[in-house]
């Protein structure tokens, strides 16, 4: 496939082919990488076990065979080297996609993200930049204990200098990853691992991207805005369904991008419904949704008929045995909505 320069620009949504296929979220990730590697020889992929093994979740299965060891390679077990090397490559003109095996293991690479990835453009007066993507499975629900279940996206939203996204459908997973790879900025791309195979959906056969920073309305409604992203989205939809059986009309918004996030979409929705319930599975304190709540009260205060509610994870390290109790499921979301509606 050949594409014009315009088509590579972030956010350029292609139209044309009518055909779609149904794939899983993890297939969407693999396809996005493969297509971008096909189209742009600057794109390289590396990380722990991404090559012959195809990644521990098989997100990169077959890519080394297809693109060779020069473009798809295993790295020594060092997240600092993975992230740091990606910065150096990006500065020198490549488009690295760095896989971190689990979001819980970014730790050793955190300083590289904080000190290099997020700041090089700013501190060099725009002379250097690091257009790279850090992909990593995150979130709970897989009985993985704290080292395989955390949701650290808020740390990165707090950093200034990186963009942060988290899809919940195959369509978004593919479109957002393509946009991230084409982006001139570093993007933290969190993959909700419990949806890897659970989320199935249609993607078009033609090339498309999903613009970073744009949320989407998953379900229209007029009584309450239910806002989330990533692994919790199916629970939001379930909750909305349950409430609709009770005659409540819930608008469900998937942020998709955490930074920058779609303020107009959220504000318009809250202005319409007058109520907002924000859902994420990350621990409550300093959770990014706190920022969303702040902006709603600052800019849509007059529309509010109830306080903005938050459903979040607890402020504890993610526990192993209580995996399911920890996560905000549909019931907990419904309860928060009912409380907000009855305020």
């Amino acid at each position, binding site marked *: 496939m050949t594409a014009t320069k315009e088509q590579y620009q972030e956010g350029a949504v292609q139209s044309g082919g009518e055909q779609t296929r149904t794939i899983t979220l993890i297939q969407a990730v693999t396809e996005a990488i493969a297509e971008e590697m096909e189209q742009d020889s600057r794109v390289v992929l590396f990380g722990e076990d991404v090559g012959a093994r195809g990644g521990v979740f098989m997100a990169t299965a077959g890519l080394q065979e297809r693109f060779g060891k020069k473009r798809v390679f295993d790295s020594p077990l*060092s997240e600092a080297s993975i992230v740091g090397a990606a910065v150096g490559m990006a500065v020198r003109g490549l488009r690295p996609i760095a896989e971190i095996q689990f979001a819980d*293991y970014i730790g*050793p690479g955190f300083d590289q993200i904080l000190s290099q990835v997020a700041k090089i453009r700013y501190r060099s007066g725009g002379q250097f930049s690091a257009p790279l993507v850090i992909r990593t499975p995150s979130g709970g629900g897989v009985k993985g204990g704290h*080292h395989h279940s955390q949701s650290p996206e808020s740390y990165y939203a707090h950093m200034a200098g990186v963009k942060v996204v988290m899809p919940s459908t195959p369509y978004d997973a593919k479109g957002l990853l393509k946009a991230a790879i084409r982006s001139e900025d570093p993007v933290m791309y969190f993959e909700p691992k419990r949806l890897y195979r659970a989320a199935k959906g249609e993607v078009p056969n033609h090339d498309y991207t999903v613009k970073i920073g744009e949320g989407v309305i998953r379900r229209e409604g007029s009584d309450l805005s239910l806002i989330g992203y990533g692994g919790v989205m199916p629970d939001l939809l379930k909750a909305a369904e349950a409430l609709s059986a009770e005659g409540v009309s819930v608008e469900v918004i998937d942020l998709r991008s955490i930074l920058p996030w779609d303020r107009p979409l959220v504000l318009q929705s809250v202005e319409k419904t007058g109520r907002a319930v924000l859902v994420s599975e990350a621990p*409550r304190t300093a959770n990014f949704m706190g920022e969303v709540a702040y902006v709603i009260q600052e800019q849509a205060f007059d529309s509010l008929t109830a306080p903005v509610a938050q459903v979040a994870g607890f*402020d*504890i390290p993610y526990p*192993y045995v*209580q995996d399911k*109790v920890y996560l905000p499921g549909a019931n907990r979301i419904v309860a928060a909505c009912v409380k907000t509606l009855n305020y």
Partner: protein
Amino acid sequence: MIEPFTTQPIRYVDPDGTPTQALPEKYTPELLRDLHAQMLRAREFDRKLITLLRQGRSTFYAQASGMEATQIGLARSLRAGHDWVWPYYRDHVLGMALGIPVFELLSQYLGTNSDTSRGRQMPHHFASKRFNFASVSSSIASQVPPAAGTAIAQKYLGTDEITVCTFGDGATSEGDWHAGVNMAAVNKAPCLFVCENNQWAISMHSRDQMSSENVAIKARAYGIPGFYVDGNDIIAVMEVCTHAAEWVRAGHGAALVECLTYRVGSHSNADADAEKFYRTRDEVNEWLGRDPIARVEALLERLGHPVTPEERTGIIEATYREVDEAVLKAEATGEPDWRIMFEDVYSDLPDHLREQEAFLRAEQTGGAQ
């Protein structure tokens, strides 16, 4: 005298059971039988736990099959419950050899109420205060700087304890590994670093993990001795680890031992198809031929004290009984209540956690909130 920085791994017994040098006197047939029994028990423990996993009673397991000589040999160089251990996740055999009861390990494995880690860790990420066996962190090499710190404290406090820190070959690529080894080295802290080099870090062979000839040689850069040993030869492991531990205990500072061994099974149950993706059956078979348990059996045979089939069966059956009883006993203690989620986050319960606990209590007991 045991020399550091050898190019070939230090060995006392060949894979076919032939001694390559005179064996120190302490290796009597009784001791060898004891070591053999412990290794066989560990092997069967792995087998049993994989069965439990297949029965859906747990979700994760990382075997140590093939690495018994390394972990048990190392344990024999330590004073159990006196010296400290900062282990990594594959060290259940080391824990067993130090005396951690199977019941304790099983409780953690199943996340029952009897679990000393209170159901918070992944299965088999053990911790035991009683055995100075620090809590396993899954995050690779994150135990290395803390181990240096424990050793610095031991020196500061004037104890005669030492600290042992274990890790795989993959861990030596992490910055934490280098930072921790350096920290212990410059402080001349009594820290024994032991690499259980089973050659694979999931799908990465150690050849691709590093370009130095081995791990032991890296010790040179930090100014400490590095010993390279055949990790499937329990006598070699015991001799070298004891020598290094004594050197460390004598106040000379830190040391590094690399045990060259092999992970015969998969990385974990999540990687059950290793041979399909990254390694060959031939390689596995070659290393099965260097099995540490078979090696001691061959040596005992040569010494005229063979392990009989009945003895073998006895050990295996005793292990299964031990595990079965521990499982029943552990499961009988039930699953930890959700309430304990909020404990141990801090030494006390701050207000925001008190509120979150109250919220969950209302939800779990069906009360409106």
